[in-house]
């Protein structure tokens, strides 16, 4: 139960920061916080990755001008594909966070744009511009910034883990 509560807290923090505080800051505006959490949950082998993606998508859809369900669909599919890739191809790779950041952002934009294109073709929603130089630059910046951010946290995390585990081992030796 506690684990599920933590996941819901992460969803709320991720979504609210993504649509408010992060959007006003120069570097952080290009970081997809929800995808960032999603990647870390996959790396931590958390069993609630899909639940996180689904609920985040639902909350994001409440704050979206687009058709309801677009974010749920995009984030849930990204979660499934990230789990599949992690379990089958790159689980032992050191550059897995970078690969995951690249795949997840590219996939997210591909799915959202494909859905918008299909819905506007079926005349369910009005035509929305999905491809321009500015959008392309934004996607590239998001891939770059999120990857840098993820890689930095991953390296710092790995370093701290190594350092603290050394201290723990030394401590246990002293005790012995």
């Amino acid at each position, binding site marked *: 139960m506690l684990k599920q509560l933590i996941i819901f807290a992460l969803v*709320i923090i991720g*979504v*609210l*920061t*993504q*649509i*408010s*505080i*992060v*959007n*006003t*800051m*120069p570097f952080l505006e290009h970081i*997809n916080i929800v995808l960032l959490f999603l990647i870390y949950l*996959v790396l931590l*082998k*958390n*069993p609630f*990755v*899909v639940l996180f993606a*689904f609920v985040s998508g*639902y*909350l*994001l*859809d*409440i*704050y*979206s*001008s*687009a058709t*309801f*369900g*677009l*974010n*749920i*669909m995009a984030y*849930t599919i990204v979660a*499934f594909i990230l*789990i*599949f890739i*992690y*379990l089958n191809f790159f689980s032992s790779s050191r550059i897995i966070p970078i690969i995951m950041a690249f795949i997840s952002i590219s996939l*997210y*934009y591909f799915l*959202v*744009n494909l859905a918008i294109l299909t819905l506007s073709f079926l005349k369910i929603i009005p035509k*929305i*511009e*999905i491809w*321009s*130089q*500015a*959008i392309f630059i*934004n*996607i590239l910046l*998001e891939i770059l910034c999120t990857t840098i951010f993820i890689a930095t946290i991953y390296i710092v995390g790995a370093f701290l883990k190594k350092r603290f585990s050394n201290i723990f081992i030394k401590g246990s030796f002293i005790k012995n």
Partner: protein
Amino acid sequence: MLQIKSKTIIITVAVFVLLIFLNFLKVLETPKQMIFSIFAPIQAQLYDTGSKISKYFDSERATANNSELELLKAQVRSLLIQNAKFKILGEENKILKKELGFTKEHSFTTVSARVIGADSLRNSTLLILQIEDINYNTDDLKLDMPVIVEDGILVGKIIKINEREIFMAPITASRSAVAATVLGNNYTIGVAEGESSLAIKMGMIPKTEKIKQGELVVTSGLEENMPKGLLLGTVSRVDQDPQSPFNIAYVTPLYDVKRLGEVLIIKSY
């Protein structure tokens, strides 16, 4: 343990389809509004904090001269608003002199709102507004109503209304378009459209119109809900292509849409 079970996929798809169906039947409106109302104050606070942090970093970077420059820019903005109003009043005065007994006042009926966040769709530039008066009924708000700041600078248009959640397209957004003219003209000379979410591009300007750098671009009032004389920005560059029958003017907006806090929605004028 992290793994993909076929049961998980089936349940996820089933819940997704059920949610779409319930949303179609409008059953989800109440929980959506509840979630929005619960998180709106936190969100507004977060957005405000983000803007303040951003402004702090901007001011840290700026030197004393820059802060003086900011003050002067604010003064210029205020003077431009006054100038626009005087020119419009002058024009009105002329008309009034012609049509005796006819009076028309350019005072707006507005509703105050605040920006509480951005559209969650990543490549969208829309902003989410919330009406400050919690008892206000949003039924009398319509699509395409203009959103202004500082008593006359146009910053966007309403493009979607979901009960208490209002989506605004900034004037710099690619989907935004407004009939415009330069200050002093009485007719529309072009269409001001958003350019890469940063600037405004005014197209469809006939070759006969002579626009100079630094001139003030305002709304022409051609559209239904759009009053005449709302400031858009200043002309930074004019492109004259001999092959094209129209000129293009690039307009620098007077307000940074990323720093928006309090705004006013013009209901009637």
